[in-house]
């Protein structure tokens, strides 16, 4: 990198640290968060009252109260931003040749960069659509509680997913991109950190990472189909007090 700018030379000076931080942050906390997030969302499929188990899960997360925002910023948004920005630099510095050399590992190399970009775009859209950060610009659909304490987590999510026909396919592509990027990133990180060295150990790690990715993909797609088929017309389940009927009367 021959750019004489200050930021680049600062990066060059801490090259190893910056690049290893990129690898580490992709796994923990970002990758770990993805696992928790998809498994939590998969509770929408739990038997019993529709969305009841999901509501319990998200209320456990929101029990952090005022600490939730700093936790989100420090453990999710900032690491994600760092990982993404450096990731874009890595993508721009690469020159894919998957057409010419069609080896499995080379196709995964290109896929890692493609899914990274797709995941970034999707997460941007997803945060706008669901997180209250998006409220000032027309997003922020997710609500933990409606009026009078009605449990609306599953309901608001399902309404947002079912708003248009293209949203669920976009989610499928986005979630699968994230899952592939994490599972393949886990495989390459084992090489980066020098844990798997011989081709045999890398092959075994490949099977383990593929199985890990498959479980996450099933959880993610299960959650998506759960919200896609969630009955948005039935009244939301009641959690704290018994006035859920008030909200359904109001509309």
């Amino acid at each position, binding site marked *: *990198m021959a750019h004489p700018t200050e930021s680049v030379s600062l990066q060059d000076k801490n090259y190893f640290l910056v690049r290893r931080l990129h690898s580490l942050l992709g796994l923990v906390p970002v990758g770990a968060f993805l696992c928790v997030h998809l498994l939590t969302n998969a509770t929408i499929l739990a038997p019993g009252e529709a969305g009841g188990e999901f509501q319990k899960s998200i209320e456990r997360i929101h029990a952090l109260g005022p600490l939730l925002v700093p936790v989100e910023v420090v453990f999710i948004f900032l690491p994600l931003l760092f990982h993404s920005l450096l990731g874009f630099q890595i993508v721009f510095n690469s*020159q894919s040749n998957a057409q010419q050399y069609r080896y499995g*590992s080379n196709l*995964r*190399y290109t896929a890692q960069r493609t899914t990274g970009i797709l995941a970034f775009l999707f997460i941007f859209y997803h945060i706008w659509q669901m997180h209250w950060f998006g409220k000032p610009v027309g997003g922020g659909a997710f609500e933990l509680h409606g009026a009078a304490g009605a449990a609306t987590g599953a309901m608001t999510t399902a309404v947002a997913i079912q708003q248009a026909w293209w949203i669920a396919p976009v989610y499928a592509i986005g979630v699968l991109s994230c899952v592939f990027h994490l599972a393949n990133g886990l495989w390459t990180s084992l090489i980066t*950190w*020098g844990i798997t060295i*011989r081709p045999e150990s890398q092959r075994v790690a490949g099977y383990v990472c593929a199985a890990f990715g498959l479980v996450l993909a099933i959880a993610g797609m299960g959650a998506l189909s759960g919200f896609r088929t969630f009955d948005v017309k039935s009244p939301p389940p009641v959690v704290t007090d018994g006035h859920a009927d008030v909200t359904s009367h109001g509309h």
Partner: protein
Amino acid sequence: MSKSFTVTIQRQDDPHSPKYSESFEIPYEPGLNMTTVLQRIAATPVTSDNKSSTPVAYDSCCLEEICGACTMVINGRVRQACSALIDNVLEESAGAIDVKPMSKFPVVRDLVVNRKAMFESLKRVKAWVKVDGYHDLGSGPRVSPHEQEDAYPLSKCMTCGCCVEACPQFNDKSPFIGPAAVSQAILFNANPTGKIDRDERLEVLAGPGGIADCGNSQNCVKVCPKDIPLTDSIAKAGRDTTLYKFRQFFGR
């Protein structure tokens, strides 16, 4: 009944003139290799459309896949012209052969490229054992057969350029030194005398263009004509730089 096949070559008269392509019709005979084909063209440089041309410039030296000089891209795959047997190459592409110079190095003329970048990378990682000097250094330390078995495959590298040609991370935008130099750093770090410069090599591997710029496409190990376990070396470089930086951080 004489068969023939077409060889299409990407040519360039000098580093600054434009690329162009020329096709030559070569009478088939069994046991040809790419180098003999280029010799046939030099003997009668007449293109397929009967125009008089010039011999195609190419590098070659050992003619037995030891020196790496005749490395070029044949039918989209980087390899040595001397060991590219035409019978095999024709099977891949049904009667036509496409030849280009390596794309990651500046072209000198036709198929001749300047691989200086690779040798500069070897200098950066100090890919040698320090034994120069007028004073008597005594005999070197003994090397166990086990260590020899690990080192020998790495020592077969001829700096031909196949690994960097196929590497998506080795390009103008990226500072990556390439798999060959990483592997040579690991080779000389394993040498009992070469170990003296171990930390200096690891410092380079941890810096810009070092091991962090590997993208794990693993093309290098698949195109390496000498079957060098390049990805083993790369993973070892990852491990060694991790441990080195930990030691450095915690004051060894």
